[in-house]
């Protein structure tokens, strides 16, 4: 076999040899360029099987004796039979569907192996050799037919996978890459013309030309687009090191297997004290057995906030996320915890919330200040009634024959009016008191009535006619009574002020509530005032925007943030006729039956 006298090199050998060397170089180049990836490995295997075919074929043409030619023909087929299965596996790796078709991939390899066994062990596949003008050539027997079926089925299968990927791929590099691969394969498969010679048809085997085309196109494609998608797994180490959040990976026994630099800094332990040690020794409070068990049951842990005291005694607020990696039967293998220090964010949120509460309170007090005359009137009325009834009572008793019935009636009214005055004062005190937000299930119509009672005098004083149209049977809304009163108070006062310059028309204020399928409960305050143009509607809710000469421009801005904090929305519309309407919608969730 290695005796040079058995060979006479013909020009026909050069083409396949060059093709074989180039395709092998392609495979190795890709493997080097994209080291470590499954795709480049399978492509390399495919190119090597092609190289075995081409190099052996080239040698076969230069062989002088028939037995040696038969040996090289069989050697050549060690490459040929594996080309379809390796191509399929490469395609599956490329479209990232190996896991789905693992059995098909292994099956194709086994079939290829069996086919090669039949090449070696029987003379039913390769029955002998032809001698053509370009040299010796294998002669196929009946067993070659199943091989051809296998060969073309896997070819079509591979092209189909690529086609699906092509239609699915979004524009850009992934799509270009699939397209380039499809074209390269389309050309490379012209190499199949080499089968003709094996059935006695003296067709020159220029398959190496197709393979060379394949090589060139693949080189271009790999050069331009790369084969490999950069996945997180590729850069896992860099990601872990770059992470600002602390990472801890625990095994199922609670031993720390990995941690990053951020973790050492956050928890204040050096690497040696954490990694490889049971978590209970260091951070047992944070990641105790119960936590691991709960995580193992639920599979994921999100938005879990907890306080943690560092070794330096600093209290931190931590946001911990966790997930589980499981083995094939679902047993937890590892627990991954990502911990973020949200102390500063929490403090900022708290400060912002406090500032908002403060601001809401200030504007509330200012609103009440504007209404002080009207509020005084609200107390004056029952007080007047109390005093008058008291005097009347004395007089009924002081009569020659005291009228006890009338006296009793007067006292009854005194009690009623006294409690009415008390209610007014309580309501005002609640509005001017600085309170934390408190959520409760509320009847929105009740809130509306309270605000209307409070603004009754203000409405009268401004010669406004108030109408209400409140729907019955509205579902309860979850909210803070005082804050919602503030919003409504603000809307009503604004509406009254908007009508203060209206002289020759009715000043009409309409307050309605109704149920809205999409929005829950909607409350609208409609005035017949000067109205709003579209530009004003756009800017209405901006802070410091005001149309009033003495306004601060905070009222609606705060009202909107209050409504948004209630997961609702506040908006304005211009009326068909005159004036404007402000609406707010609050979501309704049926309270759970206790």
């Amino acid at each position, binding site marked *: 076999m290695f005796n040079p006298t058995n060979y006479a090199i013909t020009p026909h050998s050069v083409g396949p040899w060059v093709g074989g060397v180039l395709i092998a170089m392609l495979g190795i180049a890709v493997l080097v360029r994209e080291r470590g990836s499954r795709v480049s490995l399978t492509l390399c295997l495919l190119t090597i099987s092609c190289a075995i075919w081409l190099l052996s074929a080239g040698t076969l043409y230069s062989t002088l004796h028939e037995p040696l030619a038969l040996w090289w023909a069989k050697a050549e087929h060690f490459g040929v039979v594996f080309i379809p299965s390796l191509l399929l596996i490469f395609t599956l790796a490329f479209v990232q569907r190996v896991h789905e078709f693992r059995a098909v991939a292994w099956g194709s390899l086994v079939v290829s192996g069996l086919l090669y066994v039949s090449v070696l062990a029987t003379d039913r596949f390769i029955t002998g050799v032809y001698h053509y003008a370009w040299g010796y050539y294998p002669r196929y027997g009946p067993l070659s037919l199943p091989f051809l079926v296998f060969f073309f089925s896997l070819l079509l299968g591979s092209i189909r996978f690529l086609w699906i990927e092509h239609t699915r791929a979004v524009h850009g590099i992934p799509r270009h890459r699939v397209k380039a691969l499809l074209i390269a394969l389309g050309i490379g498969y012209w190499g199949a013309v080499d089968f003709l010679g094996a059935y006695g048809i003296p067709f020159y085997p220029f398959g190496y030309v197709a393979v060379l085309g394949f090589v060139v196109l693949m080189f271009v494609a790999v050069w331009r687009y790369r084969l490999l998608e950069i996945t997180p797994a590729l850069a896992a180490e860099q990601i872990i090191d770059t992470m600002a959040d602390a990472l801890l990976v625990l095994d199922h026994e609670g031993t720390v297997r990995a941690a990053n630099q951020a973790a050492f800094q956050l928890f204040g332990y050096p690497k040696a004290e954490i990694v490889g040690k049971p978590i209970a020794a260091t951070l047992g409070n944070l990641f105790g057995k119960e936590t691991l068990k709960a995580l193992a049951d639920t599979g994921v842990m999100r938005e879990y906030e907890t306080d943690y005291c560092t070794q330096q005694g600093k209290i931190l607020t931590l946001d911990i996320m966790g997930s589980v990696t499981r083995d094939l039967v679902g047993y937890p293998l590892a627990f991954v915890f990502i911990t973020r220090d949200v102390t500063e964010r929490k403090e900022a949120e708290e400060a912002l919330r406090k500032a908002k509460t403060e601001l809401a309170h200030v504007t509330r007090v200012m609103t009440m200040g504007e209404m002080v005359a009207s509020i005084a009137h609200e107390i004056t009325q029952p007080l007047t009634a109390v005093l008058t009834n008291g005097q009347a009572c004395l007089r009924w008793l002081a009569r020659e024959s005291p009228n006890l019935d*009338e006296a009793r009636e007067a006292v009854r009214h005194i009690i009623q009016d006294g409690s009415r005055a008390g209610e007014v004062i309580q309501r005002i005190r609640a509005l001017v008191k600085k309170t934390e937000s408190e959520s409760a299930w509320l009847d929105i119509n009740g809130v509306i009535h309270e605000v209307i009672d409070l603004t009754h005098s203000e409405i009268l004083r401004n010669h406004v006619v108030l109408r209400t149209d409140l729907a019955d049977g509205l579902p309860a809304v979850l909210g803070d009574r005082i804050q919602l009163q503030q919003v409504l108070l603000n809307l009503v006062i604004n509406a009254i002020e908007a009508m203060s310059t209206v002289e020759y028309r009715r000043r009409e204020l309409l307050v309605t509530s109704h149920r809205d399928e999409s929005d829950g409960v909607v409350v609208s305050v409609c005035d017949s005032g000067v109205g709003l143009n579209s530009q004003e509607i756009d800017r209405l809710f901006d802070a410091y925007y005001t149309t009033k000469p003495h306004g601060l421009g905070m009222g609606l801005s705060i009202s909107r943030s209050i409504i948004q904090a209630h997961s609702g929305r506040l908006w304005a519309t211009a009326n068909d006729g005159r004036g404007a309407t402000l609406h707010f919608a609050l979501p309704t969730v049926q309270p759970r039956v206790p």
Partner: protein
Amino acid sequence: MSEAEPTIFVIDDDPSVRQSLESLIKSVGWRVRIYGSAPEFLGSGHLDAPGCIVLDVRLPGLSGLDLQQALLRAKSHLPVIFITGHGDIPMSVQAMKAGAVEFLPKPFREQDLLDALKLALDRDRTTRQQRAELAALRTRYDSVTPREQQVMGLLVTGLLNKEIAATLGVSEVTIKVHRSQIMQKMQADSLANLVRMAERLGIPASKS
């Protein structure tokens, strides 16, 4: 309702205040009627009844001041006492100029209200009496013939019978007859009395 007994009409939109005033006024022994709004009172047909009105300045729709103007236009002479929860000065000035008896800021001392009520009722009684007298006087004056009215006009200027006779170109006897007719018809027992009646009727003293 009897013409003689006065009624106090309370108009306030606040039910508590309304009720308490009703009780207080009743306890003093006066008659009282309560109304929730100005139109309600205007429609009640009591605009000419004897009595007075206790009126809240701020009423929804037609305000207290508006009602006061409406009463003046309707020639209702019911005295008005204003009560208000917002003692604002411009309003009280306006109310007093339009003839209100009193302007009481809430909460008021009950004695102030009762005093004001008494004053208002007295004023109502007096003006009512004066108007009745004037009406009677006018009826009497209407029964005097035109010629006699002419004589009366000269008489109240202080002319003697003969001067009147000379002025009118008739005999002194004729004037004497006219004079006794006038004194009888006007139920005047002296010339001085007749002069006062003429003043009240606004009869101008004729010159010739």
